């Protein structure tokens, strides 16, 4: 009897200790695009501070829903919410990481980065108006290349932030795309076959000769897909590199845009990659659990200051220091019931 009581007591003590540890776990859910870097940051942060970060990559739409229903401490979305929506739901939004979307092809006669396209031509391919590789619009841009055969358009079948950045760019450069198709995480595609996830698109592109698709930069690089050079707003043909994504974010007007809702597609700048994009974090401005929100902000403060190296390792681009100080100013909007900033 005495012995079993001791066991019981120590089990109870353990349980109390476990629940104390569980209190310092922060939870987030949302976009799949930044999942690898958030997971890596979470791992490093736990080693540094002992606070665990649990991030579920359920998709941007799911992330928005979860933060609205307050089941997580922060939500993540690749598509920034407008200032009106943020105000209506009482949310604060800030960017956390930058990446890019890259068009890729599969043609025997073309080496990676050799083919050049402009935004309007890319839009016409995805609208189904340009159907063969030897179309004059394409050969004029690529005089030295031997191009022939039909074009098979590959795109995402599932809703995705990658799709959002891609079609947002197409809508900016092609009025016809804007009026006919529009912008969203999933759209009504006029043309092509749909692959599920980045890996689905990559698989289709690798299997079908003469195909064109789009994937996240990190994915294209890891799988050595043949990327395409794009003409940016300044009229320069650029290759997708971390430097080109950073250039796109350098010129962005983070300060003047309410809710920091900048979509980094088709930004000015000689070196800017036209399909760059930031992934956003969503938090409640008046959180019910002030302590959890403070922990989340501590985590991102740490990540934005110390997470640059791991971001580059995973082919993401860390936000420049100037943007980080703007983000820290944005955090002051997150307050407790008394109106005092939590961090």
């Amino acid at each position, binding site marked *: 009897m005495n012995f079993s009581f001791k066991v019981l007591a120590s089990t109870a003590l353990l349980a109390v200790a476990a629940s104390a540890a569980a209190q310092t776990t922060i939870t987030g859910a949302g976009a799949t695009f930044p999942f690898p870097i958030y997971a890596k940051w979470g791992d490093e942060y736990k080693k540094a501070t002992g606070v665990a970060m649990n991030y579920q990559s359920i998709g941007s*739409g799911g992330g928005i829903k979860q933060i609205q229903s307050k089941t997580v401490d922060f939500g993540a979305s690749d598509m920034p919410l407008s200032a009106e929506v943020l105000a209506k739901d009482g949310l604060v939004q800030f960017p956390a990481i930058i990446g890019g979307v890259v068009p890729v092809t599969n043609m025997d006669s073309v080496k990676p980065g050799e083919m050049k396209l402009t935004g309007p031509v890319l839009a016409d391919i995805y609208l189904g108006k340009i159907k063969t590789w030897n179309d004059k619009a394409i050969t004029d841009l690529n005089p030295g290349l031997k191009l022939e055969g039909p074009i098979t358009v590959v795109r995402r079948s599932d809703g995705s932030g990658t799709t959002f950045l891609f079609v947002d760019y197409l809508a900016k450069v092609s009025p016809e795309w804007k009026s006919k198709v*529009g912008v969203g995480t999933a759209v*009504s595609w006029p043309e092509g076959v749909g692959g599920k996830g980045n890996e689905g698109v990559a698989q289709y592109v690798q299997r079908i000769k003469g195909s064109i698709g789009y994937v996240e930069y990190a994915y294209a690089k890891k799988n050595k897909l043949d990327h395409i050079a794009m003409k940016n707003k300044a009229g320069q043909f650029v290759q997708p590199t971390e430097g080109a994504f950073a250039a796109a974010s350098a010129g962005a007007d983070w300060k003047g845009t309410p809710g920091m809702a900048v979509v980094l597609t088709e930004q000015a700048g000689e070196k800017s990659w036209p399909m760059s994009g930031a992934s956003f974090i969503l938090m409640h401005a008046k959180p019910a659990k002030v302590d959890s929100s403070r922990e989340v902000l501590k985590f991102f403060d740490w990540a934005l200051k110390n997470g640059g190296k791991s971001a580059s390792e995973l082919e993401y681009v860390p936000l420049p220091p100037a943007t980080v100080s703007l983000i820290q100013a944005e955090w002051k909007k997150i307050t407790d019931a008394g109106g005092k900033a939590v961090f």
Partner: protein
Amino acid sequence: MTTDTGNTGKSNTFAFQDKLFARTTQFFALLVLVTLLGIIGSLIMGSWLTMTQTGAKFLVTDVWDPVRSLFGGMAPLWGTIITATIALVIGVPVSFGIAVFLTEMCPPALKRPLGTAVELLAAIPSIIYGMWGLFIFAPLFAETLQPFMINTLGKLPIVGPVFQGTPNGFGVFTAGVILSVMVIPFIASVMRDVFDTTPPILKESAYGLGATTWEVVWNVVLPYTKTGVIGGIMLGLGRALGETMAVTFVIGNAYNISAKLFEPGNSIASSLANEFNEASDPAHLSALITLGLTLFVLSFIVLALSRWMLSSMSAKEGKRT
């Protein structure tokens, strides 16, 4: 602990135990009914927005535009029916062949290994079939059989256009073929089991009268086992209608209604798998749930049709004798 003495007490306990047992089993059985009603109820609740706003037009509209919030379920419905049809057109004759060989002609030494192989095929998870389709079958099909079909069947006068297109290996036809491979083990193992139930005396009599194996199977075994055979086919059809991952991998996922079998299409289950995660707009979510309800109703219709077919067959039987 109290012990019961005397006969009446004991029989009371037994009566109570019987009652308890009956009630427990009844509860489990009712649980199925309650679950079913719950699923129907939540599907109807979820699809209410689409049903009140779009109504029956949902089934005959082929626009699926999440940006403008316009949703019609005709394309995935079409794809679901076409792929399931292809699966059965290929799967049923092959399964029939397997079952006939295993029950009538197979040397006893082969019977067990072959039968087990068919059953093992049914145990493979569907995602494996999907990956096999994506990585192995589709590229192989695009390089060999598909160009051949385009050059031969595609040149025929009336059915020609059905087999024309770019040979890229993906599309409605590929999905149908993968599905047929998936339903064959189900249909074949059910057919084999029911063929085995035919009393040997019936078969022996027919053989004694000089009937060939084909005549025995067609005129004796099949009429005797038709309920089971149709049940097996319906089981296969059910799997073909609801299969998600394997289809999503190879069908091309385009909201597209076309008689051309090599074009990309979509099925109800694969649209759900693709879009549920990111559907934040209530109209989009409701349209997806309506698709789910449509699939539910479709399966119900298939089941009802098979019941009706069986009952009309047995009615005819009565007239003949």
